[in-house]
């Protein structure tokens, strides 16, 4: 077998590995042929000594499996078809997200919106307080002193700003976590399908 034939066959048998890995592996054999030829061996001789390219490729594949299967959470899934496997993992993740994650997630969104609501109503309360204590609507008390109204108003608006700051901060963190979670999902899907 010529050098070209040998490398082509090896490439075909390795096709399930990631492309950069295949190129790197082939470069090792390019080097091997180069040096062998410079030492006066023929391409046929070198091919023969290297052994059946199919066997060689199988060595890489078993190494790949054993070094990654430890961290493999879906060992029961059929390895024979990368795409089936990828699809299964995608479906699992989608189902998991819909059933387990979505409810609490929306709950958290609701909490955040509630916090904004609190901030806004405190602010409105503060503004209203400027024109008189809300208590005076329900009781026959005379309108409070202007100082009482103003301090009441400042207090409410201060609380409103604090609540607002808290809400914005939590929203930012929440957004960051959401992105992280989505990325993690995508990574899971990709990793699940690449290694065979």
């Amino acid at each position: 077998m010529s050098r070209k034939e040998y490398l082509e066959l090896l490439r075909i048998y390795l096709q399930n590995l990631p492309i950069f890995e295949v190129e790197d592996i082939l470069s090792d054999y390019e080097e091997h042929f180069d040096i062998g030829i410079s030492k006066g061996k023929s391409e046929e001789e070198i091919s023969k000594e290297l052994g059946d390219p199919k066997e060689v490729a199988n060595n890489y594949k078993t190494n790949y499996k054993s070094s990654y299967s430890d961290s493999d959470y879906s060992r029961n899934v059929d390895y024979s078809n990368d795409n089936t496997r990828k699809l299964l993992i995608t479906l699992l993740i989608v189902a998991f997200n819909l059933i387990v994650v979505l409810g609490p997630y929306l709950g958290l969104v609701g909490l955040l919106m509630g916090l904004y609501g609190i901030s806004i109503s405190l602010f409105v309360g503060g503004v209203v307080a400027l024109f008189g204590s809300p208590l005076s609507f329900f009781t026959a008390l005379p309108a409070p002193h202007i100082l009482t109204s103003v301090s009441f108003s400042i207090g409410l608006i201060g609380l409103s700003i604090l609540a607002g700051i808290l809400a914005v901060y939590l929203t930012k963190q929440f957004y960051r976590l959401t992105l992280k979670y989505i990325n993690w999902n995508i990574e899971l899907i990709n990793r699940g399908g690449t290694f065979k």
Partner: protein
Amino acid sequence: MNIQFKKGVLELCVLSLLDKKDFYGYELVEYISKYINISEGTIYPLLRKFRTEGYVTNYLEESQEGPPRKYYKLTERGREVFEDLEIEWESFIDGVNSILRGEM
């Protein structure tokens, strides 16, 4: 001889050689096949596995003839693994020899 057994022994040989000096692929293959009858194509996959497991690292070095060569260097971790394997091997061989010589 059993192929799995041969592979295990080959791992020990490669680690042992790399413990003595850095080799480039061809050199290592040439050296080993001088002593052991094995298809040379099994050594490169092994070297790659060692690299994934952190037993060896690679570096390129210029050569007088032709392009730079990829050298393999044993790491600390690789050295530890080699030393453990060597001890295992010695006691295994002792055991096998005892049985073969029929010592009861």
